[in-house]
């Protein structure tokens, strides 16, 4: 099926154009076939310790969930007085609040333009609503069986860990959803506590550890990485200790989990990078580099 006899294919050189009839069959394969094929154009090289450092965010979140559960267990057992927890929580959050402004000399506050009055207002809202709702929370789930509640809260906390914003830009990340799930779980668990004061304290604590603490972490990580690492280690060890006081097995498992996440996973990530094979060529859909929003805003 040649357009012309095969003899003169020698002198005529094949070109990659469609607009002129060439003395080659339609299914002719030139040696320049696939020459524009590229591989792993956008592949990135990772540094081991950098990856470990990044993974500390996950560690933090795991630890905060663990701490929360431990505290709840203590209160459920009645080993921990709500007043004491409330006091410590209040103190620690005040300290955190002061730190939050000290770290970056308050330009973060300037940027957001949020006044202290607004902070005070939202704090008051928290306190009043939680206090007002605590009796309702108390009677909310009494007819629901405890296992259901546990299952629900475990599910919710897992969701919180999954959807949390670890700094990766993926589709499923939604900090709102993760926070809401955490609050939902805390309410479920709080409704199991003996008295309404307990419930109140539990929910406030949940807010502190799930909403306020990550903010502070982010800022720490941004400004003073070293202290951040220190805080992370401290936090992790405290969580482990708390867990240890409940069950040794749990503590060991948790420790293994932490180690694997912080050390093994980065190692594997870097190993698997070698096998990456990503094909690129002229057929790829070109993506627009510059942002076009400036024309619209």
């Amino acid at each position, binding site marked *: 099926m040649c357009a012309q006899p095969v003899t003169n294919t020698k002198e005529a050189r094949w070109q990659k154009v469609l607009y002129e009839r060439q003395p080659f069959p339609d299914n002719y394969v030139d040696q320049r076939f696939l020459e524009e094929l590229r591989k792993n154009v956008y592949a990135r090289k990772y540094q081991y310790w950098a990856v470990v450092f990044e993974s500390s965010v996950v560690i933090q979140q795991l630890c905060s969930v663990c701490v929360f559960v431990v505290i709840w267990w203590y209160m459920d057992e009645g080993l921990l007085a709500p007043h004491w927890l409330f006091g410590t929580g209040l103190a620690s959050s005040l300290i955190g609040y002061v730190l939050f402004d000290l770290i970056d000399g308050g330009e973060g506050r300037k940027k957001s333009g949020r006044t202290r009055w607004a902070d005070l207002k939202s704090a008051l809202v928290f306190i009043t609503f939680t206090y007002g709702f605590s009796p309702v929370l108390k*009677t*909310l789930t*009494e*007819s*629901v069986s405890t296992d*259901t509640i546990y299952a629900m809260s475990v599910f919710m906390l897992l969701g919180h860990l999954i959807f949390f914003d670890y700094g990766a830009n993926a589709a499923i990340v939604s900090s*709102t959803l993760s926070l*809401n799930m955490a609050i*939902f779980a805390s*309410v479920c668990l709080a409704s199991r506590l003996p008295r309404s004061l307990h419930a109140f304290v539990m929910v406030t604590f949940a807010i502190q550890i799930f909403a306020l603490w990550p903010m502070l972490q982010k800022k720490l990580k941004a400004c003073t990485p070293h202290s951040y690492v220190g805080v992370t280690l401290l936090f992790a060890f405290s969580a482990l200790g708390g867990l240890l006081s409940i069950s040794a097995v749990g503590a060991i498992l948790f420790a293994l989990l932490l180690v694997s996440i912080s050390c093994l996973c980065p190692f594997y990530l870097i190993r698997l990078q070698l096998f990456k094979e990503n094909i690129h060529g002229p057929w790829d859909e070109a993506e627009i580099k510059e942002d076009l929003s400036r024309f619209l805003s």
Partner: protein
Amino acid sequence: MGLVSRGTAEAGLGAASAVDRPGPPDAVPDPIPTPPAEGADPGSSRGPGMVLKAYFPTCCASADSGLLVGRWVPEQSSAVVLAVVHFPFIPIQVKELLAQVQQASQVGVTVLGTWCHRRQEPEESLGHFLEGLGAIFSHKPWFQLCRERGSKSWSCKATRWQGPASPAASGEDQVMLIFYDQRKVLLSQLHPPAALPDRQAGDTTASAGGLAAVFDTVARSEALFQSDRFDEGPVRLSHWQSEGVEASILVELAKWAAGPVCLLLACLLSLVSAASACRVFKLWPLSFIWSKLSTCEQLRHRLEQLTLIFSTRKAKNPAQLMRKANMFVSVLLDVALGLMLLSWLHRKDLIGQLADALIPVADHVAEELQHLLQWLMGAPAGLKMNRALDQVLGRFFLYHIHLWISYIHLMSPFIERILWHVGLSACLGLTVALSILSDIIALLTFHIYCFYVYGARLYCLKIHGLSSLWRLFRGKKWNVLRQRVDSCSYDLDELFIGTLLFTVLVFLLPTTALYYLVFTLLRLLVVTVQGLIHLLVDLINSLPLYSLGLRLCRPYRLAAGVKFRVLEHETGRPLRLLMQINPLPYSRVMHTYRLPTCGCHPQHSWGSLCRKLFFGELIYPWRQRGDKQD
């Protein structure tokens, strides 16, 4: 006698058995040229020869020889024979008669040709005489229809005289004989009615589609059929005779009497309607109640129907007449049924028993409801309900039921009298009684309705709150401008409060949902009963009984069209068809003549109904009449 003559005609056609006689008998004055052989292409051999159609009334099949009187429809090239003029006659008188008929009925009735019916041995003279007639009544084509003694073989030829001057140069045409029953065609009414030409415009406009034209001609030339067989007119015609005169006298009497009666009744009805239209009833709460009570609807509907029936104006077209008749019959049937019901009720004092039965029944229902509520306030079917909310709702509803029972007991002494009057109302018709029954049911189940409304509102509130909070939970919000869900960043405290409320609502939902479910089921039960009653009422209201009866007893009155039967046929003879009326199928009768009902039927489909139920919107019985007097 018309009937008799028609009977013989049927026999005369001899359509039944195929007796093949040897070819055309020599008796025929001039044998028709035999049509071409089967195989050959008819178009070519016949040339421009047009097939003429001669519509011949079966009742004239046995008439003596004479002249064919009828109408020639050029556009279908068909001749509609209406009657036969017997010998002897004086041509002038025939022409006069035709002129009278023509100006009476605006139909171009002319002499189409000759008709000879040989009972005994053929005599040559008659044939020639008939030939000669063509010269007197000149018409082209000139039909010569002839029936043999054996009454099976007919011969017909149509000649186009090129003027009387040269009778030799006459072209022959293929003729097709179509027998039709004059009476049926006269009385039948085509569906869908063809565009009938108005009387003034005359027969020039009678160019409605082929068969419609034939029907129209026959229908309009009634004037021809007025003359009875016995009155000694100058001209003796034979055609379909209307039945005996006595019956017609009765009819005349009825017609004569109808006018004043209608007038009287119309006056009465106008009085009633005026009374009902009095301003007192138009005040707000009353008018609202009227609009909600099915009884009033039904009465209003009946009133309209009666006024329409007894309006002294004449029905313009047969459809309106049919409609009136249908209404009349349905009203009659309705009242008859109602009277039967009444008699049945008043025999051995059923009313009293009912009244005695009613109160206990209402009490019993209330008891059952109380039990139901007790059950709900426990742990029904092991469901996880919130105890506090459960108690609150339960008490609330129990209090309602208590109120209800006291109300019933308050009105218990009057029940019997009320029922008595209700029973009397049955003489206005069964439908009225039924709608009153449905109203009573609605009144007696008012508490269920209240429960339903409370439950539905509560549930609806919860559902909407939950849906919006669920969006907040996912960090989304409903954008009103773009009508879609956008993502938005909430403040911390907004999130917290939203989630708190969300949790609370989620855990409280099952309780509300259960109450809602139970009461919705009760409500649906009541609504279904009411719906059934309303359907029955609508059925009685809308059934076109008169048309159905007509279709049953006189199938030819309502014609969907015609159908043809090929009569036993032999070569060399004109093709003979029998045209019969194709009666309207019952489904189409129903569809065409069903009367408009007063009630509007359910607009929402099942899907939308389920949606409404799920989202806790209020549903109403079939006629948007759920909320009685609130």
